[in-house]
């Protein structure tokens, strides 16, 4: 197992390099004089000159890439102009909040999605199946940011059950119950679309598996139907559900941008949008590379989980 994880980690290196190349190339699309474009309203002659030096814009493209990469490897993501602090410090601080939000959402959507999918498949064409299928359809059609706003109206403004926005109460907050109260709505809003996608896929994966011969064997053994569904069938269906969980994790992670805006969540998505509006390119660049790299590592974990589940995968 250890060897397999190592192998997957090594194979991630070219992907990570590719990500940096792509981000670098996208950023070189900036039209006009990059330093001025990047600095925008912060563009004093000194700043422009300093940035040109920082970015090494006098040097050829390839060389510039390697300088940038080398700096990043040493933990130097540059300095944010709008915030006037090192990019990496800001990212690490913000990422924590995003991780709490996206992580909770991911657990929610995986749990609810699989649950709904399995029930739906086990009761195919029954009332539960129809209700779930229709709810799922609504779930994948509603924009998460709109849903978030409607949740605020209902649960925070009208019913006053939950705080409107933010991560902690400004006065007297800061403990775990406070965090959870603030987390409920954004985590739910963020998980809705992914829940729908996972539920759909789980349903069809289960239907596929339930027709297999080994299910008939389990039934012929006298295994209780509940166990047939939740142990035999789900175990086999997980093999095709897990890769989708990996993909959906990416949607949840990046979809947190909207939710962080709607709920004033101090995460990395909101930081990115602010940075884009302020044209703080170094902050955007660093944030994108950082989040993408995290996602690559998450996918390695997904592969490892898959290999633990399926003994037929050579490790």
């Amino acid at each position, binding site marked *: 197992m250890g060897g397999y994880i190592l192998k997957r980690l090594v194979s991630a290196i070219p992907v990570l390099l590719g990500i940096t190349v792509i981000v670098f190339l996208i950023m070189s699309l900036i039209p006009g004089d990059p330093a001025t474009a990047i600095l925008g309203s912060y563009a004093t002659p000194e700043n422009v000159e300093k940035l040109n030096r920082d970015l090494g814009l006098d040097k050829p493209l390839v060389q510039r890439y390697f300088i940038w990469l080398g700096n990043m490897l040493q933990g130097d993501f540059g300095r944010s102009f709008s915030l006037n602090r090192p990019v990496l410090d800001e990212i690490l601080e913000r990422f924590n909040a995003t991780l709490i939000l996206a992580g909770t959402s991911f657990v929610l959507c995986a749990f609810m999605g699989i649950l709904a999918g399995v029930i739906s498949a086990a009761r195919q064409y029954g009332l539960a199946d129809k209700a779930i299928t229709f709810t799922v359809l609504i779930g994948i059609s509603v924009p998460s940011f709109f849903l978030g706003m409607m949740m605020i109206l209902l649960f925070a403004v009208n019913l006053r059950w939950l705080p409107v926005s933010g991560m902690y109460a400004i006065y007297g907050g800061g403990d775990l119950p406070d965090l959870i109260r603030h987390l409920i709505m954004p985590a739910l809003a963020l998980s809705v679309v992914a829940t729908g996608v996972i539920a759909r896929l789980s349903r069809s994966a289960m239907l596929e598996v339930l027709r297999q011969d080994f299910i008939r064997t389990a039934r012929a053994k006298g295994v209780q139907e509940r166990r047939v569904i939740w142990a035999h069938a789900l175990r086999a269906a997980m093999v095709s559900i897990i890769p989708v969980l990996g993909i959906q994790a990416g949607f949840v992670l990046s979809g947190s941008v*909207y939710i962080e805006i709607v709920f004033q969540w101090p995460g990395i998505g909101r930081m990115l949008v602010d940075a884009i509006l302020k044209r703080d390119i170094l902050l955007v660049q660093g944030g994108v590379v950082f989040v993408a790299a995290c996602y690559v590592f998450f996918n390695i974990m997904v592969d490892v989980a898959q290999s633990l589940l399926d003994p037929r995968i050579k490790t």
Partner: protein
Amino acid sequence: MIAFLKLLARNRMAAAGGIVLSFVVALAVVTPLLPLQPPDVTNTANRFLPPFSEGHLLGTDHLGRDLLSRLMWGTRLSLAVGAAAAIIAAVIGSAIGIVAGYFGGRTDNIIMRIVDMLMAFPYILLALAIVAALGPGLMNALIAVAAVNIPFFARNIRGVTVGLAGREFIDAAKLAGMGHGRILAQELLPNVVPVIVIAMSTTIGWMILETAGLSFLGLGSQPPQADLGSMLGEARSALITNPHTSVVPGLMIFVIVMSINLFGDGVRDALDPRLRSGALTRPRPATIVDRDNVPDGPGDGVLDIRALETQFHVGPRVYRAVNEVSLAVQPGECLGVIGESGSGKSVTALSVMGLVASPPGVITGGAVFHDGHDLIGAPYRDLRRLRGDKVAYIFQDPLATLHPLYRVGDQLAEAILVHHRVGKAEARARAVALLKSVRIPNAERRIDAYPHELSGGMRQRVGIAMALANDPEVIIADEPTTALDVTVQAQILALLDDLRRERGLSILFITHDFGVVAQLCDRVAVMYAGRIVEEGPTAEVLAAPAHPYTKRLIACVPELGQGRRELAAIPGLPPAVDRLPAGCHFAPRCDKAREICGQEPLPLARSGARAVRCRFPEEDIASQEDTA
């Protein structure tokens, strides 16, 4: 095409989605012609008028602009941008995919590497990076959304192209001296276009959502121009005081995306042949029972199948897989049921414990008595308790019938644990003993193997061990040796024979091989087109078959017990069981058939231990009985 449209129309949800979508698109198209107020004229005196105000059906926004007008223009813009992004992504992505799939080799390799790299990004993140570089603006948002969807199209279309590129018509075009460009444009493209259209229909809703999202963040359309997303984004600051300004554009996005999804799902379902054939329905825990005739008990022998009728109901068609089959297994007896595939022998076997996949299977008549109780009418709870405990199954292909992800020891232990309250350690010890009893060497070690780590013969031994787990009274073996090669087959048969003598098991043995019957079975029943056509002690039937079909079956086996033989050596095919002739079902293939054979119903004529369903039997079983 017409069938496709019919299917689509039959799906009411999809039709509703299509209608709503057409309505929204039509409204968007005619928006400039409608007598709407100008969408961008501000009037701060009329800020935040509620819906149904005079002159403003949906009220006004924070600058006093007419919401209805802004909604219509915004919808128009959102639809246009989403569609444009979809088209751009589809054209560029498909072009890349076609080139990669057609040229293959290094071109393909490099392109797909880049595509994979792009797909390694969390989706929206890449769009954000592009907007960051190009700067906020509707055009740039459009480019970003299109760009991040290009890899999706490239990968899909490449897959389809690779499949097409190897086909003859492409080779023919190459031989005819057509250039690559012409082949791509004239031969490949027309075949790929439908796939592109389907991929577009499934992604366009997503792209509308995505551009709306970027506008919502303030990175898309810039004021005063507004699409639905930026309307929602601008309204957000007044969400609490004036929610209607948020609800109006938000609901519109929802309605558009929902109708596209409904319609798209309908299109996909109508195109998916598996859904049409019902291949994606889940079998219930027990076969549906809907009986007219219910024979009285208590039955004789350990298992008494009486006038069993099992049918498959597929749409309007009814397939009579099992037609009034009666069989009784005596204690310690091995009864063989032989027939071609489709004769109903396996369905008979599976009906006993309600294991026929249902839907489409329905047991429409008869009974199966065990221990004085009718299994067919038994509630699921009772049936489950008997399954694997009193009546156990061995199935055909052990690779498919064992769970691929559980260790064989756990599968064995489970068979014990579902019927007996014993500890885990005890169950495991029993599992080892079971493996030993089916002569698996190294049982202590093999118990932790997964099915794919064992050979075919070993797997079937595990299957047999599982059937023996609770010392059942009857074992139903459904072609247990068919998937194995000849030597292994002989070993497994010998094992089964030993086991049944040691344990006094009754076996119902389903096979298509008379050689196997000769080796193992005391009695044999021959099935044809869902009916029993002959029955009797194995030796007598083999020595003097009475039914012409039986005679031919026996003639197919060159040397008894020597490997497997398909029954294709008999000319003709068994009849489709939804269109059976009135009289003898074998008549179309029978040499001795006369006119009367196909006309009148034919009963199974019994005489002593033997029975035959034939007007002109090969042997007079009645006279044979006398001489015996």
